[in-house]
């Protein structure tokens, strides 16, 4: 297998986001041992790998949640890993969207409140935020559920609210970490259909972390994380079994 190689200056070569030789340890335990990956604008890329391989740590480094111990993370032409916490937080609020396995919605609030939340945090007016939030409800098959508390929604509905909340700021990049991990097969399929449809409509780049091959099959390509490194097969188009 070969490591995914990057040009010397990934930020200037058309990638939206790229990690170069990223090393990250937790105490004495290495999670990433020189990970390289790059994603072009508008791409949907699946990051796969066994449990403990480092795929979630890689996502956190790409998203600026973790600062790498070594290596570089580039986003939209700038060094993300060199930004201070305030600027990285600002970037996460404006340029990134996040969907996790468990929606991490605020259960006491309604669906529309949850969707409007990122806009309100970005100082949008209440009227504008709720207007935007309302426009996302029908797009994700959530008509009539805007006032429903998210604690009262089904798993699939809650995950669709989480998707709307992630996309309402129209981020350049959506990070999805096992977005269907808590859902049954058919419900998960519907969430993935909507995720891919809306990402394509919006031109949103997606980094999709999953261990589930049927979820990864929604992406345009996959990269494998193994023992803290990103690998890709040496050849493609092997014979079918």
């Amino acid at each position: 297998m070969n490591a995914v190689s990057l040009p010397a200056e990934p930020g200037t070569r058309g990638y939206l986001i790229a990690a170069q030789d990223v090393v990250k340890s937790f105490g004495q335990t290495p999670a990433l041992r020189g990970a390289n990956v790059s994603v072009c604008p508008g791409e949907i890329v699946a990051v796969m790998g066994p449990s403990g391989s480092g795929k979630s740590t890689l996502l956190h480094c790409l998203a600026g949640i973790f600062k790498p111990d070594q290596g570089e993370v580039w986003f939209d032409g700038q060094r993300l890993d060199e930004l201070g916490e305030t600027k990285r937080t600002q970037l996460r609020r404006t340029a990134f969207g996040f969907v996790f396995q468990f929606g991490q919605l605020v259960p006491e609030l309604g669906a529309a409140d949850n969707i409007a939340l990122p806009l309100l945090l970005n100082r949008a007016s209440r009227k504008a935020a709720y207007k935007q939030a309302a426009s996302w409800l029908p797009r994700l098959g959530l008509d009539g559920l805007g006032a429903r508390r998210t604690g009262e929604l089904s798993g699939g509905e809650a995950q669709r609210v989480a998707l709307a909340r992630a996309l309402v700021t129209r981020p350049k990049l959506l990070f999805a970490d096992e977005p269907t991990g808590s859902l049954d097969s058919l419900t998960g399929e519907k969430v993935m259909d909507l995720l891919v449809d809306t990402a394509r409509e919006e031109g949103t780049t997606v980094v999709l972390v999953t261990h589930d091959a049927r979820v990864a099959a929604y992406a345009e390509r996959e990269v494998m994380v193994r023992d803290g490194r990103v690998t890709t097969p040496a050849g493609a188009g092997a014979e079918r079994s």
Partner: protein
Amino acid sequence: MTVPLTLLGLLEREPSHGYELKRDYDAYFGRGKQLPFGQVYATLARLARDGLVTAGDAEPGGGPDRKRYAITDAGKGNVEAWLTEPVEPEPHLQTILFAKVVLALMLGRSAEAYLDTQRSAHLQRMRELTELKRTGSLVDTLLADHALFHLEADLRWIDTTSGRLKALAELVDNS
């Protein structure tokens, strides 16, 4: 796909002409591989010979297209037996994947690289099937689901075997 029993099953709905059977077979079962007319009529002839269908008189116009076929009681019995009996679960213990992994280890080649390449090929096929599901009919979806679950099972084997390669290499070396 068992063509004779499928055609027999289609005939149990109602007596039909060969071209009607071909049309329905292709619509439901012939994804990517249509049934040739010659095979339809050869199969119907064999079914008639075995007493599983009867061929009506040729209708005006002539040619094989003009005969209407009907299922017999014996034919219905075959369909009933086929639909109620489970398909033999195939363990696939000696797959080509297994053979390639073991041989690679025996020959000192990289079994891991092979498994990675195979994983990538499987995922590529899964992407194609997923796109077919997203754009195709419900019948396409059901067929793609079936293929996807089988490919997923292969992938699980690939991932598990990948984790067992060291132990397998020791076994092959010591035998």
